[in-house]
């Protein structure tokens, strides 16, 4: 039998198989991209640094974030999710991560930005360890492709210190 339906079925199957292949190759081309993003974060002000009634330290910061994530974008990139986390060490836990700010970057044109903001999410420690604490600000990002594998990486900015006294 070589009917209309048979030919349509064969064409559809073959077309979708090839589409799968070209999407896989498109995803593979992402691995050839070697991005060189840059980030600078300034802590402009510690607006508020208190111990909550339940004993946890809370900080409220004003930040100036400038970043150039344009090299993360390839032809197969749908969007980039980026978030800035404060990372520090306490006697109880070797790594504490607190997300302070995040953003979804929809296009390459929006990937170079400078933003002046206070922390979007509350910077609260589990305990009272933040006085005089040295911490890193780390920009994490997840590159979401149109097809294929998702990439994630980060850039660590060390050398920030919280004040020794509550204010």
């Amino acid at each position, binding site marked *: 039998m070589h009917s*209309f339906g048979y*030919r349509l079925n064969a*064409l559809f199957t*073959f*077309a979708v198989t*090839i589409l799968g292949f*070209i999407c896989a*190759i498109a995803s593979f081309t992402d691995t050839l991209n070697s991005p060189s993003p840059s980030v600078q974060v300034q802590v402009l002000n510690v607006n508020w640094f208190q111990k909550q009634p339940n004993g946890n330290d809370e900080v409220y910061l004003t930040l100036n974030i400038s970043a150039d994530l344009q090299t993360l974008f390839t*032809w197969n990139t749908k969007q980039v999710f980026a978030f800035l986390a404060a990372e520090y060490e306490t006697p109880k836990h070797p790594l504490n991560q607190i997300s302070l700010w995040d953003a979804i970057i929809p296009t390459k044109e929006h990937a170079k930005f400078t933003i002046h903001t206070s922390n979007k999410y509350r910077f609260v420690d589990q305990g009272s360890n933040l006085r005089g604490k040295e911490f890193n600000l780390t920009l994490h990002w997840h590159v979401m492709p149109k097809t294929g594998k998702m990439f994630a990486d980060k850039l660590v900015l060390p050398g920030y210190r919280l004040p020794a006294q509550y204010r």
Partner: protein
Amino acid sequence: MDWEGQKLAEQLMQILLLAFAVIAFGAGYITASFQTMILIYAGGVILTTLVTIPNWPFFNHHPLKWLDPSEAEKHPKPEPSSNVAAKKKSIKK
């Protein structure tokens, strides 16, 4: 669609789809536009559908040559022998 036409349709489908896939990928990669790739490939699939799915006249250039009816009459079909039914019954017993 005759035998040669079927072969031609099959080969045309495969070659056209592969060619459009290569063109679409190349164009999409060069212009850095995923959308371009998908649009070119979709166009290619539609064109291939139009070329290879309907029964176009050029798929029928090699019609099968059936025997003339008078030729067939000279070689009659062998008649089913009348003892077949009887044999089957005997096996059942």
